[in-house]
């Protein structure tokens, strides 16, 4: 059995005395896609930030490919799509992608390729400030995927995307899964997430109340998870 790509062991996180995460443990292998469910304030974003190395766990361990996400080697293999698009308004699309290509040690031609894949090649030299919302979202997706990350961390990726961007993202995520990459996404958009997910987790008030494979019931009725495993 292949070693887990991502291992979370007994993680606690406090903001002051407030426990944002309590004894969270789970692991994922390559090619698996986790849909992380939970109400607002449950701890999903906190967990994702710890996975991305933006935050430190107070207790417990997080390992990505056996290393801490604070290590640059691990971060090189992470693609992050958070709430903000993470690109600079005053720079052009190609300039933005080139910066991130450089930071991740990827060649500039790859940046160009991704502009084409996200149908932004025709505005490569325009500043992002002039883009429509859908275009900005597609650029964000390009930024997150361009270094072919082995682990994709997505915080509510389908929220506020237009249809074209949703379709693009779904395609890319399916490809990533097929290529053996690991995906974790927190989401409120249950339908799109359930289609892609191989595993489902529910966080409630900082505790992981369910973690397991996606079942047919979940696929047919996404609210099933909340009803079955969540507290009322």
């Amino acid at each position, binding site marked *: 059995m292949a070693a887990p790509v991502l291992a979370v062991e007994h993680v606690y996180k406090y*903001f*002051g*005395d*407030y426990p944002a995460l309590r004894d969270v443990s789970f692991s994922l292998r390559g090619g698996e896609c986790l849909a992380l469910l939970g109400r607002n304030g449950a701890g999903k974003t906190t967990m994702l930030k710890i996975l991305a190395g933006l935050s430190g766990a*107070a207790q417990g361990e997080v390992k990505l490919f056996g290393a801490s996400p604070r290590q640059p080697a691990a971060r090189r293999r992470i693609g992050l799509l958070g709430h903000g698009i993470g690109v600079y308004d005053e720079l052009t699309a190609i300039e933005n992608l080139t910066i991130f290509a450089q930071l991740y040690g990827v060649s500039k031609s790859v940046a160009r390729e991704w502009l084409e894949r996200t149908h932004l090649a025709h505005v490569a030299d325009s500043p992002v400030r002039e883009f429509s919302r859908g275009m900005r979202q597609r650029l964000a997706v390009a930024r997150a995927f361009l270094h072919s990350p082995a682990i994709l961390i997505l915080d509510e990726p389908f929220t506020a995307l237009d249809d074209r961007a949703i379709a693009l993202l779904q395609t890319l995520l399916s490809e990533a899964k097929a290529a053996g990459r690991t995906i974790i996404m927190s989401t409120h958009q249950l339908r799109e997430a359930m289609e892609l997910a191989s595993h489902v987790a529910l966080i409630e*008030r900082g505790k992981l109340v369910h973690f397991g494979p996606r079942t047919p019931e979940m696929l047919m009725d996404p609210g099933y998870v909340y009803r079955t495993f969540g507290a009322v």
Partner: protein
Amino acid sequence: MEKNIRIGIGALAGLLLLRNLYVILFNLPDEMAQGPIYRIFYYHLPAYFTAMCCYLTALAASVLYLTKRDLRYDALAMAATEVGLAFAAVNLITGMIWGRVIWGIWWAWDARLTWALICWLVYFGYLMLRQAIDDPSERAKNSAVLSIFSFVSVAITYKAIEWWRTQHPGPVLSFRTGKQLIDPEMERMLFTNFLALALLAFVMVTVRLRQEDIQRQIDGLRRRAHAL
């Protein structure tokens, strides 16, 4: 038990201060050139030492917080800095009063007074930063880093001001007896008063820590009540 120790030390500090005040006012001889006002130095200098001890405590507590991430160290760093600022203010004010009497002006850019003012502003910045951050862990972490910077800055500024003084000699707040040495009795009093002030500082820090502890408990209860 803890409360009794606090009261005990507080009483000891109080008694020592009263006894010292009596000795300072009635028993010790006058200094050569300055007349009776020099006696304020028995508070001016020990207050400075006490403030420095407090800042050193804050530095240690800050480093300990960053390594251990226990919020109690953060509370100690904050309490020590607050009390240090109080004693530093005493140092500044007694210095200004002294200067007013012997030089006729409230402020003379005396090297030590200037440094004391800079020091005070630097550590006041620490309190200002704390006030601006809501999340307790972020506040503790960032103010701990600032505390380390503050201490280093204060040390460098001390040296810098000393060099400034050698190039621009000016008035100095201090005293000497006839033979250019401090009379041993005066020296003893300086030390004894420092002891009294240090004990007082200790009590103030523990009181402040207790306040912080209660505040955190209240905050925790409040949060739990909201969650229900």
